[in-house]
Each structure stands twice: as C-alpha cells, then as structure tokens.
C-alpha cells in the first residue's frame, strides 16, 4: 500500500484545515453571538419607541454600535480564541515540525479570522434587517418607514470591515505571539476603552480600535483616510506578522 503524499502541501490546504478547526469551537459561537446581541438590542429599542423610525436611522444605529464598541471587543475575543486553539493544547511544536512553510500556518489563520469577521458583518446585516422587520410586525406603530437602501447599508458595513484589518492584524499578532491570552485581552480592552473615551479626538483616527467607527464620520475625507489606513496598515501589519512569527522560535 502506498502512503506517499498525493501532492506537496498547498496553502489552500492549510486554509481548509484552519476552517475545519473552527467546527464546534467557541470562536464560531462568538462570531454568531456578537451580531445577534446588536440585533436583539435594535429589536427591543424599536419596541420602546412611540413613533416609527426611518430605515436609514435603524440601520445606521446598528452599524454605529457595532463599529464603535462591539467590533473591537469581538475582534479582541475572536483572535484570542483562535490563537488559543493552538496555545491551549500546545500544538505549535507539532504544526511547526510539519513539512510545509511555516508562514502557511499563520497566513491561513489570518485569512480565516478575516473571513469570520466578514461573516460577522454579513450576519449583522441580516439579523438587523430581521430585527427591524420583526419589531414592526409585533408593534406596527413603530414599523420602519422610508426607503430601505440595502446596498448602502451593505456598503457601509463593507467599509467598516475593510477598515478593521489593522485592528485584526494587531490583535491577532499579539494573540499568536503570547501563549497567555492576557496580553491580547489587555491590549484589546485598553484599545477599545481609549477609542470610546477619545471619540472626538482628532488623533483617534490613527487608533486601530477607532478606525472602523470613522466610517460613520460626517467628514467623507476622514472616512476615506480611515479606510485606507485600516486596509493598507492591516496588510502591512499582517505581512510583518507573518515574517516575525514564521521566523521566531517557539521554545
């Protein structure tokens, strides 16, 4: 019987393996719960109202709460949980001894996390629409009014997602670098805290935890700058992370 390899390991395989690891994981549970919490809030908030709310406002408030607070906190928790998948059972030695380039392991993890964050945005969009519809069905007096511009809403969430790349890169790098989840959580909580308390600060746009919420800024130039900084900064940070983690020794 031949046990010879079918083919040289490809990056797609490492990515598929990474996706498989998410099955029944806490990371996947978190990815579902975080957008659901926003939708639940929107739903009950609408039921409290006496007057109907325009669709645009309902969707904007969902996106704002998400980008302002829930996204940085979710990314902090998600990256820590994904990194703990390897740190917890101490599987780095096994993985890094395999006959494949080590950067495959880290790049697959990064793409997987970005994929999950993108899925969270899509889920948020779906659950928010459902929450608003459901609240209107239960209490017709508050049923959303005005046009429902789904593409504008998806576009906004898309920009929020793209501008979160730097945040994802920073949090994932710290979470993968340290076996303990404490440094990643401390940085994530601290970053979110400063992003919240320094909302109006001009320099806030440079803070990775505040970049996504800048997509809702009234100044289009600021939103555009935040988008480019988040995306390009994220790509640079992820590349630096691959170089650093791929070369370092795990003792």
């Amino acid at each position, binding site marked *: *019987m031949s*046990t*010879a*390899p*079918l*083919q*040289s*390991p490809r990056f797609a*395989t*490492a990515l*598929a*393996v990474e996706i*498989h*690891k998410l*099955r*029944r*994981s806490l990371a996947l549970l978190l990815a579902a719960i975080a957008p659901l919490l926003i939708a639940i809030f929107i739903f009950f908030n609408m039921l409290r109202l006496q007057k109907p709310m325009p669709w645009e406002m309902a969707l904007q408030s969902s996106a704002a709460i998400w980008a302002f607070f829930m996204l940085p906190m979710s990314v902090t928790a998600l990256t820590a949980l994904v990194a703990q*998948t*390897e740190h*917890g*059972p*101490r*599987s*780095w*030695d*096994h*993985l*890094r*001894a*395999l*006959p*494949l*380039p080590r950067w495959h392991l880290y790049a697959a993890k990064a793409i997987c996390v970005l994929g999950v964050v993108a899925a969270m945005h899509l889920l948020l969009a779906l659950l928010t629409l459902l929450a608003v519809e459901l609240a209107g069905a239960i209490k017709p007096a508050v049923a959303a009014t005005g046009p429902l511009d789904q593409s504008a809403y998806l576009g906004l969430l898309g920009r929020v997602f793209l501008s979160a790349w730097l945040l994802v890169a920073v949090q994932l790098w710290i979470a993968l670098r340290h076996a303990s989840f404490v440094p990643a959580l401390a940085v994530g909580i601290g970053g979110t805290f400063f992003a919240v308390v320094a909302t109006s600060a001009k320099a806030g746009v440079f803070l990775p935890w505040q970049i996504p919420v800048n997509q809702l800024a009234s100044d289009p130039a600021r939103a555009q700058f935040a988008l480019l900084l988040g995306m390009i900064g994220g790509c640079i940070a992820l590349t630096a992370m691959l170089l650093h983690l791929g070369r370092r*020794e*795990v*003792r």
Partner: protein
Amino acid sequence: MMPAAIETHDLTRRFGDRTAVDGISMCVPERSIYGFLGRNGAGKTTTIKLLLGLLKADAGSARIAGIDVAADRIGAARKLGALLEAQGFYPHLSGYENLHLSRRLLGLRAREVDRVLDVTEMAQHGRRRVADYSLGMRQRLGLARAMLGAPEVLILDEPTNGLDPEGIADMRSFLRELPARSGATVLLSSHLLGEIEQVATHIGILSHGRLVLEGALAELKAGLAGEVAIQTDTPERALAIALDHGFDVVRDQHDSVIARFTPREDLRHATACLTRVLCIAGGIRIHAIAPRQRTLETLYRHAAAQ
C-alpha cells in the same frame, strides 16, 4: 557500518549562558530502536527540537535520512514522524478529525487515517472527542499521528508518559515490532531505563548536554565491567584492605562492598582472588558474595558519572 537514519555532528545549542546541547555527535542506525537517555534537563528535548527544526543550532549539523535539517527543513520533515511531549490535539474535535487535519497538511490519502487508527488499535475510539480521551488513548493517538505517511524515522518523546502498566506493556510490544513491521527507525527518548532496556537495540546517554555514551546496547553491556557485591560485618575495613591490594572497590548505599572488574578479567577468578585477600589477609568474615547483573542501569550510572 550500518547507514544512519539520524546523524548529528558537533550539534550545539545555547540558551544565554547555558549550553543545553554541547557538541553532540550521534548516529542512529537505520531500522534501529535508539534509546535516548538522560535525566531531566540533560538536553534530550532540546536535541529533539533541533532534529525537528523547531530550534536552530548555534553550531554543528543534523541530518535526517541524509537530509540536512538546517538546509532543507521541509525535506527532512517529510522523512519524520514525531510524538512530542505536548501532543497538541484539538480537544473539541474527534480523534479522527485530528488525524484528518494532519493527514491533509501532509498531503496524504484519506484512507491513511484508517490505517494508522487500525495499527494503533484506536479505530473504535476514532469518532469520540479527544477531550473525552484518557491519557493512554491520547498517547496512542499521538503515535498514530506520528505514523501518518509511514515515515522513515519516528521520534518519540516519552511515549509511555502517563500510561498504566498495561498500556506501557502494550506500547513496549508495539515499539519492539515497529522496525520489522514498517522499516522505520525509532528514536525513543525516555528516562525509564527499564523500558528502554526492553526495547532498544542501541542507546545514547546524555549528561549535561553531552553525549557520554553511544552504541549497540548488547555490545555495550558485554563490554561493561563485571561487578560483584560482597556483604560483610565490616564493610569499611573490607574496603580499605581491598583498596590496599589494588582492587577497584566502592561501597554502595546498602553497605555492600562492590568490586568492579574489567571485561578482560575472568570474573570468577578475580572474585576468588579478592575473597582470599579479604578472608585470609584481612580476616574479614564474608556473609554473601554475588555477581551483579550487567544492566542498562549500571551502564547509565557509569556513563552519567563521567
């Protein structure tokens, strides 16, 4: 001389001021079971990490099946399977899924997972979550993963750790048959001398990061000095008299006088000479005299004392 499955030359690794592996030149012959011995902190795990390419050597080189680990880590890793102390299984996934992930990363066929589960007698537990496995089952699963793709060289770091006596016996018989069954070479790291003695064909003993003894176990044991334990009421005096007459003697923790003879000496004749010296010249009353077995433990103690 048999070709080497694992070969190192002056392999050295330092952590700050501490030299964990100090110029090791080892040779593990093909299809052998090489017992890699040493107390905790002797440098066994560091050496294994150097062989796996997990650590970089400060000096020297390591070759797996002829492939230089530093020059071609991926090529060398293709020849290897390893069971490490930290097994690194995903507890939320089943045993089968864990092997399936490794199998995919190795680019092997799906049926390879069934093969290794059968070989390690884990097939009936494959669908259970690893979180529900006993330590022994995890060790078996680790062995199954190491055997994926039938690698030429297996590195097993403390494979009997945490196993019950039955599990240890099973693992022992499994390992003993491995080279004949699969053609693999096994590097078996352990501090359990009794276990190594029962399965190893070759040994290497590490002490303070240096390889102090290496070779075929049978040859090393045959070449070991013979020892005789003498029990007497006056061990101090017996020791002094024997030393005066040029015998190589020590006193052990049980107050016996241990006389050591070189392999070239006829043990029976040499013992008779010593007895005569003690009884006739020294007037020592001997209660018992018995040859000590040439065990791996004796070898280990001799080597570690160097």
